[in-house]
């Protein structure tokens, strides 16, 4: 899809309190706003931010209802595989799950993912961030990874613009982080393009060709 499309995109962004879910949500929503798209977000505040489950609902070009109904999310971005699985029933048929994990989701889910045509794209963002020496930037690594697939219609360059704009401290480290995630995503894209596969992959191997190429 192209960035000025009026198509609605419903995105669930989830993780555990302290993983920077609110920041991650701001990164995507501000980018969408700057592209002239409509944005409505519902954030989690209060008690849950103390290590509990945290979930943001992001609607790009969507309605004014703050929450997404289960079974209708196009995309999920999960900082924690447990939370990804817990919230998996938010996904619509044919949706895409991005998850911070080396292994993807629990293998017993594969038949369901296949049945519902939900694809899972995973990257160990925390490990990458630790390698970069900025463990707190795992959320930004994941953002870069997501951007590589262009499913939200938010170009990577615009994401970088926003990142520069909204992160005050450690911006150099943050740019490294988003770049590392983006490259990891690109690699998956390239590998799959080599295989030229358009097979309906789903499930745990978590490396699915996307039908759109990055801008």
């Amino acid at each position, binding site marked *: 899809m192209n960035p000025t499309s009026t198509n609605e995109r419903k995105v669930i962004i989830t993780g*555990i*309190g*302290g993983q920077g879910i609110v920041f991650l*949500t*701001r990164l995507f*929503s*501000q980018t969408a*706003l700057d592209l002239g798209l*409509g*944005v*409505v*977000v*519902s*954030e*989690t*505040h*209060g*008690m*849950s*931010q*103390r*290590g*509990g*489950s945290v979930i943001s609902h992001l609607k790009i070009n969507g*309605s*004014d*209802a*703050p*929450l*997404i*109904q*289960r*079974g*209708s999310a196009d995309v999920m971005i999960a900082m924690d595989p*447990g*939370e990804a*699985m*817990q919230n*998996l*029933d938010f996904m*619509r*048929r044919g949706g895409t799950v991005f998850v911070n994990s080396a292994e993807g989701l*629990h293998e*017993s*889910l594969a038949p*369901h993912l296949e049945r*519902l045509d939900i694809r899972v794209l995973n990257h160990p963002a*925390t490990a990458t961030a*630790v390698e970069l020496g900025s*463990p*707190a930037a*795992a959320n930004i690594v994941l953002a870069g990874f997501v951007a590589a697939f262009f499913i939200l219609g938010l170009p990577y360059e615009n994401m970088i613009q926003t990142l520069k704009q909204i992160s005050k401290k450690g911006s150099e480290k943050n740019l490294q982080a988003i770049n590392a995630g983006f490259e990891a995503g690109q690699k998956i894209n390239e590998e799959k393009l080599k295989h030229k596969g358009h097979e309906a992959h789903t499930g745990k191997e978590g490396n699915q060709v996307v039908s759109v190429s990055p801008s």
Partner: protein
Amino acid sequence: MYSMSELPMPTQLITGNEAIALGMVEQGCRVVTAYPGTPSSEILAGVIKYKKRLSRDVYTEWSVNEKVAFEVALAASWTGLRAAVAMKQVGLNVASDPLFSAAYTGVKGGFVIIPADDPGPHSSQTEQDSRLLALTAKVPVFDPSTPAEAREMIKDAFALSERYRIPVIVRPTTRLCHAVSPNEVDESAPDEKIPSVKFQKDPVHWTATPKLRFKLHTELNQKLSDITAEFSKSKYNETIDANINGAIGIIASGVAFHTAQQALTELGARVPMLKIGTPFPLPLSLIENFCASVKTVVVLEEPDTCIELQIADRNNVKGRLDGAVPNAGELTPEVMFSVLHKIFAHAGIQVNAAPEDNELSAFIKTLSLPVRRPRLCPGCSHRSAFYAMKRTFGPRAIYPGDIGCYTLGTNLRAVDTFVDMGASITMANGFFQANRLANDERVIMATIGDSTFLHSGIPPLINAVHTGARFVLLILDNHTTAMTGFQPTAANDYLADGSEAPRKVSIPDLVRACGVEYLKVTDPYEQEDFADILKDAQAHAQSPSGGVAVVIADRPCVLYDKEPILENPLPVIITEECDGCRFCTEAFECPALVLRADGSRVDIDYTICVDCGQCIDACHKGFIVPKIAEMVG
């Protein structure tokens, strides 16, 4: 009223709370007070942000509690300035005394009250509906459905308040407060001159005697009936798709209106809707006409029934009262869908099935995924205090708790009760008297945070001292209001806007002034000493001449002030010997202590560990050790 410039104003993503704040600042509100509480906490911070950006002169304060906040703002209104007060819904209970009185006395400058409701509830002890309190107090209410509408309603609320000299409530809910959406922010609009008002004595209103109060009551009733007429023409009460000849019609207010519209889209249905933005006083003529125009009416509102309750003839009305809508809880998209689905099915109307895949939902439940309950942060000083307390007095002691991050002490079984702000002390007081009668000699040890103590702890402490209650009161002083986002308290040396406080109030001095004879201030990170002091305090409480013994656990919140840990880190490791017995993960529950998936041992998650070293004592087998010690052998 402000710049009508053709240039597009910069659009910013702001929260619902910030939209409310922006509304206040741009409407020339001059005094805004608040006490923090989820979901309302970011309103005052928003006012401070926009008063700086828009260069407006606004007095802001984090008041010591909601009653204080209400009255400080009310006084400003009585001088003729526009004023507002914000709080969470249960905060309005604390401020209900002045609320009821001010409805009678009336106001002068526009006076707007923002009590944020919490359907769910997500972060509150009740799901109470502030609109019902408004109805009882006889104060008009606006019920916004989006942040932008809330901002618009603030403007109309000030105007209404001034026209009728009446306090006005704008009531947001959690989902609106925490929604983020684009808003145009005009930072170049010039400030209007602060009106040159002066407080004018007005005994008929400001010091009304009971006889005059009766007259004020009749006046108030007259105001409400005039406002009802005005509301029946309000743009906030709007009929949508009226021409659809439906068997079903929906009356909805607040966020529930948009959730209902979304559900209709999913259902593939369209029906006439009456959107109500002024639930009290309710323009009943609109309601009656709407009810007469369709066969069945569904009322959708949160968190309780305010509109539905005011409809006298509920013959064809479905809602929370007749059970068509659940009588508690948030109207989430799923609840909304299923409510409407049932009603359509009952009317024999064909609609879409829920998009959710039930098979997947059921399967997820079988995965026994970890339940992430909220926990105290890694390095939180409350954990150290609770751990020492539990080790010293064991599971038999009675632990009345209070409202704040430390309510999470329930996880550690260090909090046995919580009722409302300040109740730890009064409950301890009551337990002492009841136990005395029942010859129950268990240790009673209450915990309360610094902000909560200042909010509502002082009269209870005076009461306990004066009546000779004996228990230990542990004040967990972490130097901030942590739970709601680190707002300063009266014990801090700075104010809401970051400026220096002319004076700070000393908690130890307050405790002494309440007549407490035993007071020790100590660092809970020094767990051994801390436990000794707790024992000593308990001995004092029990001694023949004893009374309430107060211990202040003095250690800043690690999120608020990282300095002490950065200056004195104590990195730890868990040795090879760890056998995964789970004692530390359960009794100490630091989120950085993580049991391996196979249960074989516990590891430290160094991405979140803050090197506080507090868990060393949490392994009774001595497998958690300082990193240094391990390195030298």
